[in-house]
């Protein structure tokens, strides 16, 4: 039998495919990038995989994160999709909620984005269930089959089924699913209750539509990729990253393709959690800065907040996702003058043409150009020296477009670009912490993505965060997170009942049933029973309130202890608790299939005395602590001695990223390969 010593994770991003391989015997990590190949995404994945030189025959796990589903929705490249719903309600999807996206509230000529489903592809069938789950009108089974035929005849490839109040009684949707799948084997069918069992008919419908829209292409892609990996000798587990962290087997992913849509950012958060576990940190904010956007997520007690309110272009998707706040600001964001005020974003130069310094024709200064002016990037070190930057052009752009109109030096103008970007970021992070009553000063900032480590120490200064942790290979940290993921499966059911001892006892029954469902799914993914762990949660709220808090339910809990946990959480998050009855909205179970995880260690070599050996040069750069230009020593990250302090100012470089330490900060490499800036 072949020895399986490698674990691989491959993450597709907008411009690059990141691949990471980990040799469990040697502890060696190999990181490779290949260009994304939008026309045939699997090609880029295979190229990046092969570049790691890890033998697929010797790989035990291959974890994949893909944005294929997300892009299909954004670019309207999914299947021809139809809707089957109740007679008289065919327009639930088109009518939606009637509101405008928040940035468009004064756009009185607003034009809706192209619908994922044409009206001619929506059909209502007789049958109706009421809010208690009682069948008011029986489902017209013949009408379901006729609807399927009509849609197939009109070229529909994939159907979303959603009936009113199906969360309270799944009978009609289940019947429709089995009727359609047996009558039309080539038709892909997505039913709402397989995805979400909560009320709000539009959101449930749009979730089912999104699922139906991407199901055929994602299934085809995963099958194709898996065949190509198997053809290259891989016979380990092929796992797909989920939007709420954790992974699932490719079989589950084909059944629940929607769970993959936000898998990219989820990888970074999974990595942050695992970093927290390995270093004993439990309160973390992940900070992922790429070329066009910045993602932040709060992690409390080792667990990120999950929400069921994700959106793709104003299309609500009720699947569990991490509560990630994204702002349109990154290395490529354009800085511009607006009648005397300096704005940064929302426009981005993207990867093409990219910042001025890429020399591809853009003349509008970006954050990356400002970084070059400030000395944070060097013209000949970008991407490990693979790409050279035009510093002169960047300086000219910042000078002419910003410094002169602002009446300040080029350097101050460049620093101001960072100030403005930072102000936006501070606002975004305060918003995600304050709405939960948290104090950001109790959090460690985990910085990754190409530009995260450059900006994070500044953000920490600004928000008085105690420290920044920069993981090893920060530019491919999402892929690392995927490597560290367990198998997970979530299932929930809306119950809507007051919390008392009788209903709690009932809940145990509901939860037991959900748990056995989750157990079945983990068993189907070959997780041995001893590695299956289940967490039971109740989503609770004050009677009359809408938003819920999720409370973990333990064996010994009774009505009183559950209510106490809820009151306490409410107090912590919102500053008050109420003398009100508590209502149970949803019962949830998360099943986790524990996988063996690589543990990183850099061996027991003794610490060096100083960092002299890792110091490779120096250059002038802008120090935000004193707001002046200073000499910054440059260190090579791979040569750093663990546990030996580096005093700021300092530039710590590595092939695809750079960490900037200001003069009132110090950096310390830990024994696990992380760099801590305080």
């Amino acid at each position, binding site marked *: 039998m072949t020895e399986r010593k490698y674990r691989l994770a491959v993450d597709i991003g907008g411009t690059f495919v990141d691949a990471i391989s980990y040799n469990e015997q040697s502890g060696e990590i190999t990181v490779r990038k290949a260009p994304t190949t939008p026309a045939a995404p699997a090609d880029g994945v295979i190229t990046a995989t092969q570049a790691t030189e890890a033998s697929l025959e010797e790989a035990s796990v291959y974890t994949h994160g893909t944005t294929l589903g997300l892009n299909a929705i954004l670019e309207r490249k999914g299947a021809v999709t139809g809707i089957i719903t109740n007679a*008289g309600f065919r327009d639930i999807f088109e009518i939606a*909620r009637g*509101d405008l996206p928040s940035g468009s509230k*004064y756009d009185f000529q607003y034009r809706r984005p192209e619908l994922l489903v044409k*009206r001619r592809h929506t059909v209502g069938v007789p049958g109706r269930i*009421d809010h208690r789950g009682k069948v008011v009108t029986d489902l017209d089974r013949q009408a379901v089959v006729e609807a399927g035929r009509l849609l197939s005849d009109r070229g529909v490839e994939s159907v979303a089924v959603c009936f009113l*109040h199906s969360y309270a009684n799944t009978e009609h949707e289940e019947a429709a699913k089995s009727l359609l799948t047996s009558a039309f084997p080539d038709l892909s069918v997505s039913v709402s209750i397989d995805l979400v069992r909560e009320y709000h008919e539009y959101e449930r419908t749009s979730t089912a539509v999104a699922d139906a829209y991407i199901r055929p292409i994602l299934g085809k892609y995963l099958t194709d990729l898996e065949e190509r990996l198997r053809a290259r000798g891989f016979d380990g587990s092929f796992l797909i990253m989920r939007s709420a962290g954790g992974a699932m087997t490719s079989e589950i992913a084909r059944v629940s393709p929607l769970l993959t849509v936000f898998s990219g950012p989820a990888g970074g958060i999974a990595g942050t959690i695992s970093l927290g576990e390995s270093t004993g940190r439990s309160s973390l904010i992940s900070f992922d800065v790429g070329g066009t956007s910045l993602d932040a997520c709060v992690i409390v007690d080792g667990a990120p907040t999950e929400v069921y309110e994700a959106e793709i272009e104003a299309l609500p998707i009720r699947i569990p996702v991490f509560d990630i706040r994204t702002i349109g600001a990154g290395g490529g964001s354009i800085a511009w003058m607006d009648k005397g005020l300096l704005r940064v974003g929302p426009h981005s130069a993207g990867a093409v043409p990219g910042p001025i310094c890429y020399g591809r024709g853009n003349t509008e200064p970006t954050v990356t150009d400002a970084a070059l002016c400030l000395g944070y990037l060097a013209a000949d070190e970008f991407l490990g020296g693979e790409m050279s930057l035009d510093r002169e052009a960047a300086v000219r752009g910042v000078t002419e477009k910003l410094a002169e109109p602002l009446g300040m030096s080029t350097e101050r103008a460049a620093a101001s670009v960072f100030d*403005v970007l930072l102000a936006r970021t501070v606002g975004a992070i305060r918003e995600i912490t304050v709405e939960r009553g948290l104090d950001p000063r109790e959090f460690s900032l985990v910085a990754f993505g190409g530009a995260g480590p450059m900006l994070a120490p500044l953000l920490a200064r600004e928000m008085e965060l105690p420290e920044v942790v920069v993981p090893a290979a920060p530019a491919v940290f999402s892929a690392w997170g995927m490597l560290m993921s367990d198998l997970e499966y979530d299932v929930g059911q809306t119950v*809507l009942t007051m919390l008392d001892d009788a209903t709690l006892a009932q809940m145990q029954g509901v939860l037991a049933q959900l748990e056995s469902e989750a157990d079945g799914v983990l068993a189907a993914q070959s997780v041995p029973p001893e590695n299956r762990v289940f967490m039971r949660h109740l989503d609770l709220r004050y009677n009359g309130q809408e*938003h819920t808090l999720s409370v973990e339910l333990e064996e010994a809990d009774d009505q009183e202890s559950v209510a106490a946990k809820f009151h306490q959480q409410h107090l912590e998050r919102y500053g008050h608790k109420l003398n009100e009855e508590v209502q149970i909205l949803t019962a949830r179970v998360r099943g986790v299939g524990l996988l063996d995880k690589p543990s990183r260690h850099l061996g027991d070599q003794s610490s060096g005395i100083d960092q002299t050996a890792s110091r490779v040069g120096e250059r002038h750069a802008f120090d935000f602590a004193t707001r002046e230009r200073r000499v910054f020593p440059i260190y090579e990250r791979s040569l750093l001695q663990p546990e030996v302090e580096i005093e700021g100012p300092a530039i710590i470089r590595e092939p695809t990223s750079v960490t900037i330490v200001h003069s009132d900060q110090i950096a310390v490499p830990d024994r696990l390969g992380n760099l801590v800036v305080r």
Partner: protein
Amino acid sequence: MSARPKLDGATVEVIRHYLNSTAEQMRRTLVRTAFNPVIYEVLDFGISVYDRHRRLISESSGILSFLGANDFAIHKGVEKVGIENLHPGDVVIINVPYWSGAHAADAMLFTPVFGEGSDLPDAYLAVRAHWMDLGAKDPGYVLDSTSVHQEGLILPAVKLIKRGVVDPQIMAILRYNSRMPETIIGDFNAQISAMRVGERRLRQIWDKFGLADVDAAIDMIISHGAETAREAVRAMPDGQWSAHDWLDDDGVSHDLIRMAVTVTIEGDKFTVDYGDSDPGVPGPVNIPFGSTLSQAKNVFKSLTTPETPANHGHYQPLEVICPPGNLFHAVYPAATYTLWSTMVSFELINKALAQGMDHIAASSGSDEPGFMAVGTHPDNGEMYSVSNNEGIGWGGTPEHDGSNALQHLSTTAVRNTSMEVLEHKSPIFHERLELRRDSGGAGKWRGGLGVCREVTWVAVGELLSMKKKTKTRPWALRGGHEPETTNTMIVWPDTDRAHRARMERFTMQPGEGFRNFSAGGGGWGDPLDRPIELVREDVLDEYVSVEKAEEVYGVRVEPDGTATPTAARLERQAS
């Protein structure tokens, strides 16, 4: 002018982001802690941050009309309390319609915020939200009041919280005057939480930048806003245009009410005069001046600086005129509860401007044709009060079709209420909710479609209809057609009691119900100029019937989907 050194444009932008985030953090706190579906489901609220001169510096909605009304109410509130009587930790409530620019149920709370060592407030935070019940003569909305004294408890800029301590006597008055005391107390707490978050954030901003620099930044942010808006007005043609439209009646009599506006653009000045409208009326459709100002501000903003978060400067070019006693300037004791008459008048400014400008869209369905259900829930014996804002078609524009079934232009951040939520919270049952074919006004660019909703009561309860414009149609532009069928609610449809509802209340017995039709938008341009392929698509999607396609658009669409032009279309093309 002050001798203060001017701040650089980068620092100002940094401070601007911090100030905008303050309003956003208040909004998030309110939504997450609210008790009332009108806040968390419908998003019926408005949050504003003011400087010491009560100039708007940032805001977060909610409802657009609340925001403009806050600007008016903050001045009145401070004036009534007396600035010298405001202390740190105070929270004032104001709901006198003529001062607060809204009906009594939309009370505004505000708190003064003091910088280190200041004797007078350096800033104010305002949160307005719909209070579910303040003891008006009827539960839910009041549709036929003839005096403000029938519209709920009046709170004339009263301190609910004094120096951080809640006044138990005033809370008791609120509690005992409300039919839903738990809900309003819960929402009160949510609004306070939002203000406390805003207060902390403002203090942090002052600590970081210093009061003087923040003041200087605010001056620059406001003059930047003013300059941007003036530039936009200068780009519009000079001229004077008038327009009018009709409100069905005042809820008490049956007479049409004329709503009129004259818009004058001169250089960088934009003046809106409502004085040519009918005088005030006995029923509750009178509009407080604060609300009139607010609607003019919203439309002005959409025309000049739609993409930027609003501040005081953005409204500098705008002047709004209306004499007291007019429909648009209600005076005591005029009834104002159903001041949603502003929704019908909302697009008047556009209607006037369309005579002199090219890029104006035709009218939307122009009314917010929703409904409310109130009563005692048979499942739990508790009082319920639920409402839904119905979608309407928007008008065709010079570049594209009007969107189908959106919320009214004045409430673009508001959402309709989920049917499943409505059926949980009240004993009603939906029979149908669909787009209305052929309800969009025909045009080269078609008006968006309205909807049809059919509801039946399963236990006795009350229905409130919100119709304000059913007798006249939304307007079209440049040869477009007005929507043929318009805004109607039929109560007890298909029975011999079938009744065309206006703004009124009905008791519904089990098995009884209504059919509500919302209006589509007006068309833009001659329908014979609509590309034949788009007409064909509309027929396939059943937005337009085969008959209308032939009759109005001049396109014959066969059952197999082939489309051919009629003689009328060919003739139009030849001309």
